[in-house]
């Protein structure tokens, strides 16, 4: 028998260590240590109800277990085989106690569709993919369905572009299929560039065939026989696996001429990107593939009408494609039954930041941020207080406590001032300064702007400079107005999606953390202590004994005071090096 005790940080904070000790001691006392093993595990992702204890093999799941409960669990459950009902998890909906963890709601918080094979099959073995229904959808499309029927399924499924924009995939396919041309292209956008995001990389590394299959389906649907994957060169493993997979698919006759004897031909080539964020924008991506400077052009014309070398081109992102074979196999209705009214299916997120379970998750649309952060992500690191979560990467906004319970979907996130983006999700805690966070994202956008349009090229630089001024303690109230006006004008006038969304981190933090901005300019204070320039070193008169150690060590002679008298730091001269704090033996130097 095994007793599993959650050793995740969240549970650790709520005395799981003491619980573990108690369990072990009592088991030894009772001489059960040969039969029962106590194991510390990683986070169950249910920190809200921690500490968690799970008894194997019967899968009993106890929540909010205190060290004092150890004896009862052992004596009742392990010795007598009776479950301790009061510690069982209570379903919040029907108030029933649930013993078996497999039936608990939170296990269903994550549903893997796009990631269905990731971490399950060997990505370099096409057989394993085929054994998991691989290429069944393609075969079905080619042999049993017309392209129009495929479009209909895609439209009905409600799948929307997972790259961030959320354009209905079926509609895009339909438009491209209706564009008349001798040559058309299917392009897979694998130019994942959000800081901290790696959803697409993981899919290509873990399940490349699902993307290949979907591209072929798309080709059949829109009448294209050429597929291109635009992938950043700094994804060498994904490139390797994709190449292997393409070669295997060709060997099996699943790519190439006359696939499965249906007369349909389709093949895929790779195009490498140099890692410019803006090349994730579809027109910039196409220009980059054409060998031109990777910068966007005005739409219309949309790539569906005039794309790669002027030919109709259907561009979808990796995750979007990964959903396609499942939709064909399990039907549009099944897919549409998952998610919210206007956002169907699931979304993969890369959880990062001040969260315990940094990692890749996939949840149905409509899951709340709270569920993602606390139940899947295991809550905030070191038991700190949640402050904000950034979705949509540099194009998104910072959402706060008040948004935690709103269901995640395309429209809700936009309404809240952020966006879905490609799926980066960065969690911030009380130690994060929101002005600095906005500055961090602007730094990224300034770096990644292509430089074509003036609002993005110059405007974002100015936003960054003003934010920098604020973090240096030189900001004014007018600067905040400037940020707002400038941010809104950039949104209004920039050429492409990158520019139009780049002010979001600033605007959303001003909106949601107004007080913090005001503090930075009026009180010259940074409550999280991240803005070094805003710190003040002061000498506590109560503790100062006048030893002169601080004054002697101050490199700029900012400290004055008589021997044995109370010393004072001249704030105008102080360079905030911290030498005084280090030298003071009496805890008389404080940071304010």
């Amino acid at each position, binding site marked *: 028998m095994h007793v*599993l005790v959650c*050793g995740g940080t969240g549970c650790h904070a709520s005395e799981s260590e003491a619980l573990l000790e108690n369990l072990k001691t009592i088991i030894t006392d009772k001489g059960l240590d040969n039969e029962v*093993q106590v*194991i*510390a*595990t*990683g986070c*169950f*992702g249910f920190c809200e109800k921690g500490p968690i204890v*799970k008894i*194997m093999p019967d899968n009993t799941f106890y929540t909010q277990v205190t060290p004092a409960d150890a004896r009862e669990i052992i004596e009742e459950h392990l010795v007598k085989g009776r479950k301790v009902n009061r510690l069982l998890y209570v379903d919040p909906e029907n108030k029933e106690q649930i013993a078996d963890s497999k039936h608990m709601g939170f*296990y*269903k*918080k*994550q*549903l*893997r*569709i796009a*990631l*269905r*094979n*990731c*971490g*399950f*099959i*060997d*990505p370099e073995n096409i*057989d394993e993919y*085929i*054994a*998991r*229904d*691989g*290429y*069944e959808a393609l*075969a079905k499309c*080619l*042999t*049993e369905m017309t392209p129009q029927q495929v479009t209909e399924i895609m439209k009905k499924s409600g799948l929307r572009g997972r790259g961030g924009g959320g354009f209905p995939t079926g509609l895009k396919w339909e438009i491209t299929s209706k564009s008349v041309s001798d040559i058309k292209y299917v392009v897979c956008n694998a130019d994942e560039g959000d800081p901290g995001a*790696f959803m697409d990389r*993981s899919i290509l*590394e*873990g*399940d490349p065939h699902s993307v290949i299959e979907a591209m072929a389906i798309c080709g059949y649907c829109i009448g294209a026989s050429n597929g291109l994957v635009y992938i950043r060169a700094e*994804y060498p*493993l*994904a490139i390797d696996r994709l190449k292997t997979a393409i070669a295997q698919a060709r060997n*099996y*006759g699943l790519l190439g001429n006359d696939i*499965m*004897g249906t007369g349909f031909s389709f093949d895929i080539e790779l195009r490498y990107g140099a890692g410019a964020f803006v090349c994730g924008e579809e027109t910039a991506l196409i220009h980059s593939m054409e060998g031109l400077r990777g910068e966007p052009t005005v739409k219309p014309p949309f790539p569906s009408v005039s794309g790669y070398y002027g030919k109709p081109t259907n561009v979808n992102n990796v995750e979007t494609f990964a959903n396609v074979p*499942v939709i064909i196999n*399990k039907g549009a209705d099944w897919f549409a039954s998952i998610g919210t009214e206007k956002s169907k299916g699931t979304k993969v997120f890369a959880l990062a930041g001040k969260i*315990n*379970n*940094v*990692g890749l*998750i*996939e949840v149905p649309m409509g899951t709340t941020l709270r569920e993602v952060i606390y139940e*899947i992500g295991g809550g905030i690191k070191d038991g700190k207080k949640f402050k904000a979560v950034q979705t949509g990467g540099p194009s998104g906004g910072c959402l706060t406590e008040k948004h935690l319970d709103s269901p995640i979907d395309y429209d809700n996130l936009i309404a809240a001032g952020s966006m879905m983006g490609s799926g980066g999700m960065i969690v911030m805690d009380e130690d994060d300064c929101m002005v600095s966070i906005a500055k961090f994202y602007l730094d990224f956008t300034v770096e990644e702007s292509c430089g074509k349009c003036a609002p993005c090229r110059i405007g974002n630089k100015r936003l960054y400079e003003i934010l920098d001024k604020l973090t240096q303690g030189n900001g004014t109230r007018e600067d905040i107005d400037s940020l707002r006006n400038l941010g809104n004008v950039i949104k209004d006038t920039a050429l492409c999606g990158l520019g139009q969304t780049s002010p979001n981190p600033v605007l959303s933090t001003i909106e949601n953390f107004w007080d913090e901005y005001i503090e930075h300019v009026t009180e010259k204070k940074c409550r999280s202590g991240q803005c070094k320039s805003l710190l003040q070193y002061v000498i506590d008169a109560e503790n100062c004994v006048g030893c002169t150690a601080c004054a002697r060590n101050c490199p700029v002679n900012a400290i004055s005071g008589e021997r044995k008298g109370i010393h004072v730091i001249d704030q105008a001269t102080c360079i905030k090096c911290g030498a005084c704090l280090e030298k003071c033996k009496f805890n008389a130097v404080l940071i304010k």
Partner: protein
Amino acid sequence: MGEVKSLADLRKIKEDLRAKMSLRENSNNPESLVQIKVAMATCGIASGAKQVMDFFIEELEKRNIQAVVTQTGCMGYCFAEPTVEVTLPGKDPVVYGYVDAAKADNIIEKYIKNGELVDGIIPVNYETIEKN
């Protein structure tokens, strides 16, 4: 495996493969193999998954344990890389996180040989779609 020439071909191949895979996955047959999957995405490799995989391959052979060690993609537990999923015949898969050579040794000696769970289990916290 030859070329897939039709849907029937594909289905047949699938059935063959599925039988083979399910033998590995779900068999209650105690003689069947131990299956070990090492998450070998970029995050895993960066944390040392390659060395862990090599360790399993070499050590299992040395210690004369019949096992299949394969690579797989990202399991999503990036916070705990390298991650390894161990499936003992007839049992549910167990995922271990933060696996290094010492931990791998521990897993072989305790879990694979004796069925004793060891510290560092990552509870699986998702559902995946059912097969057709």
